[in-house]
């Protein structure tokens, strides 16, 4: 085919322009795909990556929580309810959950009787007392009941009493002692003792808290205390009989 000017247009001329158009088209497609990728990275992938990191962290936390709970489940399952109940009962005997005055008096009297001492007086130091003005004049130490005793007896018996008192299954401690010698071999003894109690509400610990465990020292102490002599007597029962004349002869 001849074109003006003497130039000859061959078929390859059409191929050239088609190829050029094809390059434009393909580069446009590439650009569009590239832009799509950019948009996806920016709008979809990037936020999801942050979300993935967060989710991964959550998975880690949940796994740790589950491990902890499984460990606790194993520990709780391995506890022997019967054995623990028996131990709790023994600890309550050593350390009552309330101010057990009759039990306290009984064990003091028994300790004194066993050591052949003579009790002159026993006085409970009262707990918190308020005056009319509402001012607290004496405040007791929490979980402690103070008892003042006056007694008399021989040196050997007083010494034995002091020894027995701190190895009684119902726990007490002797705060102070004052001993005065009398005529003969008798001693007059004044002492202040502390009796202990601990109110414990049966509260189930929070689920995420580990099972309470006894330390070796606590186990050792309990074993020792459970082996102490029991000087307390059974609780006094309510009387079945009654009097017609409260002022009558005993």
């Amino acid at each position, binding site marked *: 085919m001849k074109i003006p000017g*003497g*130039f*000859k247009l*061959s078929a*390859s*001329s059409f*191929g*050239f322009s088609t*190829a050029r158009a*094809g*390059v434009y*088209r*393909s*580069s446009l497609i*590439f650009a569009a795909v590239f832009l*799509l*990728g950019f948009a*996806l990275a920016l709008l*979809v*992938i990037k936020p*999801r990556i942050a979300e*993935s990191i967060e989710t991964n962290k*959550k*998975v880690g936390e*949940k*796994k740790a*929580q*589950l491990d902890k*709970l499984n460990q606790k*489940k194993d520990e709780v399952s391995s*506890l022997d*309810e019967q054995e*623990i109940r028996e131990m*709790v009962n023994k*600890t*309550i005997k*050593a*350390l009552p959950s309330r101010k057990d005055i009759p039990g306290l008096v009984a064990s003091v009297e028994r300790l004194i009787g066993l050591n052949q001492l003579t009790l002159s007086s026993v006085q409970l130091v009262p707990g918190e007392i308020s005056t009319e003005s509402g001012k607290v004049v004496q405040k007791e130490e929490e979980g402690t009941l103070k008892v003042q005793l006056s007694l008399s007896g021989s040196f050997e018996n007083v*010494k*034995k009493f*002091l*020894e027995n008192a701190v190895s009684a299954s119902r*726990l007490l401690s*002797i*705060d*102070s002692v*004052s001993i005065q*010698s009398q005529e003969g071999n008798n001693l007059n003894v004044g002492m202040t003792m502390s009796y*202990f109690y601990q109110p414990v509400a*049966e509260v*189930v*610990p929070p*689920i995420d808290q580990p*099972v*309470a465990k006894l330390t070796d020292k*606590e*186990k050792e*102490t309990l074993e*020792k*205390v459970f082996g102490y002599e029991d000087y307390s007597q059974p609780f006094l029962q309510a009387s079945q009989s009654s009097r017609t004349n409260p002022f009558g002869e005993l």
Partner: protein
Amino acid sequence: MAGEINLLPQREYEVQRKELIQRWFYLASVFLLVLELLAVVGVFGFLGVRSLEIRRLTSEINKTTKTIQDLSAVEGLQATLEKKAAKILSITDKQRRLDKVLEKVAEVMPNGVKLSGINLSDKNDLVTSGEARNSTDLSTFLINLIDEEKGGKYFSEVNVGSLASSSEGKYSFGLNMKIKEEVVK
């Protein structure tokens, strides 16, 4: 002869080059698209798997929690036991063997000395009063109290609070001292 230029080899080369570029662009676009698809599927897939994992773990946690709650009575008992044991330990730590103090005082007293009174405070202060047959017995008692091999093992800060002698040569005394902690334990 009118100018006849043979452009064919050059053009064909150009066409071929452009077709190559075009093919490269297509291939690159497809490759990029596949990459993008893979990235999107990968991210969503990962998220989906992790979400399922969370759901599974949550269900496991609930199941385990329920089992622990079913055993809460035993756990409560164990907690009570632990609290009591801790308190008992603190009490036994506070308990003092005061009979041993009497024993140790008697151990260092010579025959010519007798006590008339003794006071043991909660702070391990020991105040004694008594009398000695003569000054030698009193001196022996005081020396025994501070001797490292005798009383010094049990007592410290020994002070003579009061001292008086009678016409018969007897001595009345008042002594203050501290009891060492290991004596009463």
